[in-house]
């Protein structure tokens, strides 16, 4: 199995119960970790899909994967530039990782024309990532058009949630979100 390129400081550090079982007949109390007032933190390691937790832990900015667009707009808004930069930085530092960017639209209009409009959104995110140093072969931009809405509603709020590009990750060993 190929070595995963995980930054050194994120080697598997799992804090948990590993005390030696005490012989009950000796009468000494069994040391129990539960309810000791210490919150267990899991740093590093891989999640169930084989992706580093840095990409999926809600506390990490890299777990934010959606860039939203205004109606009839296909450029990355200023408010998402830092997020895109963070993802670009990860890709530059972890050359074996790849991303799939899926562009989406709201439901109004022709499915095939919307597929092409969604493509413009994913292309915009790809352009930003490669300008910031990600390699061309690390990034594929595709479109789901109107076919996979985040919000199945039929109002402005739902449509706003559906006009977006999502970033999916794949680790060097092929495990991941696509």
């Amino acid at each position, binding site marked *: 199995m190929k070595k995963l390129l995980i930054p050194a400081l994120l080697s598997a550090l799992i804090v948990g119960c590993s005390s030696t079982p005490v012989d009950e007949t000796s009468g000494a109390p069994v040391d129990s970790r539960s309810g000791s007032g210490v919150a267990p933190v899991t740093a590093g390691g891989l999640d169930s899909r084989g992706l580093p937790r840095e990409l999926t832990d809600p506390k990490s900015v890299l777990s934010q994967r959606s860039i939203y667009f205004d109606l009839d707009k296909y450029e990355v808004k200023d408010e998402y530039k830092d997020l895109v930069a963070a993802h670009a930085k990860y890709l530059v530092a972890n050359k074996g990782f790849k991303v799939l960017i899926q562009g989406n639209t709201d439901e109004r209009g022709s499915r*095939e*024309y919307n597929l*092409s409009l969604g493509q413009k959104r994913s292309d915009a995110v790809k352009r930003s990532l490669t300008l910031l140093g990600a390699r061309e072969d690390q990034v594929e931009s595709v479109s*789901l*058009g109107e076919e996979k809405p985040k919000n199945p509603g039929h109002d402005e709020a739902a449509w706003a949630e559906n006009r977006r590009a999502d970033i999916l990750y794949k680790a060097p060993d*092929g495990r991941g*979100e696509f």
Partner: protein
Amino acid sequence: MKMTPMSQIFHKILVFLSLLAATLAHAQLSVEITGAGANRIPVAIANFAGDPAAAQVVTATIRADLERSGLFKLVDPGGTTLDENAQVNFGDWKGRGADALAAGSLARGANGRMEARFRLYDTQKQAALGGAVYVTGNDQLRAAGHRIADYIYEKLTGEKGVFSTRIAYVVKSGGQFKLQIADADGQGAATALTSNEPIISPVWSPDGSRLAYVSFEKKKPVIYVHSLASGQRQVVANFKGSNSAPAWSPDGRRLAVVLSKDGNSQIYVVNADGTGVQRLTQSAGIDTEPRYSPDGGSIYFTSDRGGSPQIYRMSASGGDVQRVTFEGSYNVSPRPSSDGKSLAFVARRDGRFQLAVMDLASKQVQILTDSNKDESPSFAPNSRMVLIATEIGGRGVLSAVSSDGRIKQRLSIAAGDVREPAWGPFNQ
């Protein structure tokens, strides 16, 4: 590529391929008539004689087909049974209001197969217009009824009937997508593909043996060609980026497709086996939804190269682009009719997406519906009816509309949304 252990796959994609003949559909497509033609021809279909069970199926099929077409008014035969050789009292039938009468019989022939015989009469001329014999298997009685209805339709209207054709469509139900094929009356639905991811843009090969479609099972749009009889399918376009909007050339050898591999969405042509990709359009905008003209010489397509999505036409080799639509700011999904005379498309007017038909000679456009969300038009092979996907009461249904807007049928499924219709060709 290293195989990811099944247990580790977060989103399992289940794709089942099933043989067309062997599968029973879970949900029946039901059809209701919501609009009829102006001057319907009054016709009586007598109860056919012979094998009672077979005769019942065949007679009922003929009546339902003619009624559904919106061009006929069924005259009650008053319980009369007539075989194809019976003496006909023309005055009597004229008196009941019938301009035409069909009589026939079902009987098992020497080789054990069922034979459906009939004659069609003109009650005014007091003469037979013709008749035929159709030999069929026991499970093909409805097919015999459809053939007879086609014959009657053609004799009385001068146009070919489409009762023996099939339609393809996608059903979305409970998070699953099924690509289904049914008879034009909605009966006999079978599932060609089941998937947990969307399926769009199905199109029939000209000989009716294959469907091309776009599947999202690989997390991106990929074009497949799928042989209906065997269930075998192959990937025809999976280039980097999106692959969509397939359209068959009239000789069935090539597909026009839309690829984003070289930047924005542009139109290419590829052999039906996926080899030999050639680029056809060169614009800075989006070019999509290609459809060949029936003579194969031109391709209609949607493009926003002029600033808004409109319909254009180019030569099949890619040059000589001409704009076709000029009214309104959104005209998409061009579908030329088989007879070369009309172009169906979707026009957005006042924010509402509606079925439109352009007469290609006069360039006149008629809006055929009063809906909000029409999409994906598909002409019947006789150029008279157009199938569209639309929404009624929040549910996805199909609507068949005649080219003059009068005849309307609604096709729906009880437990799901129907969309992406494709009307199949005449039987070869």
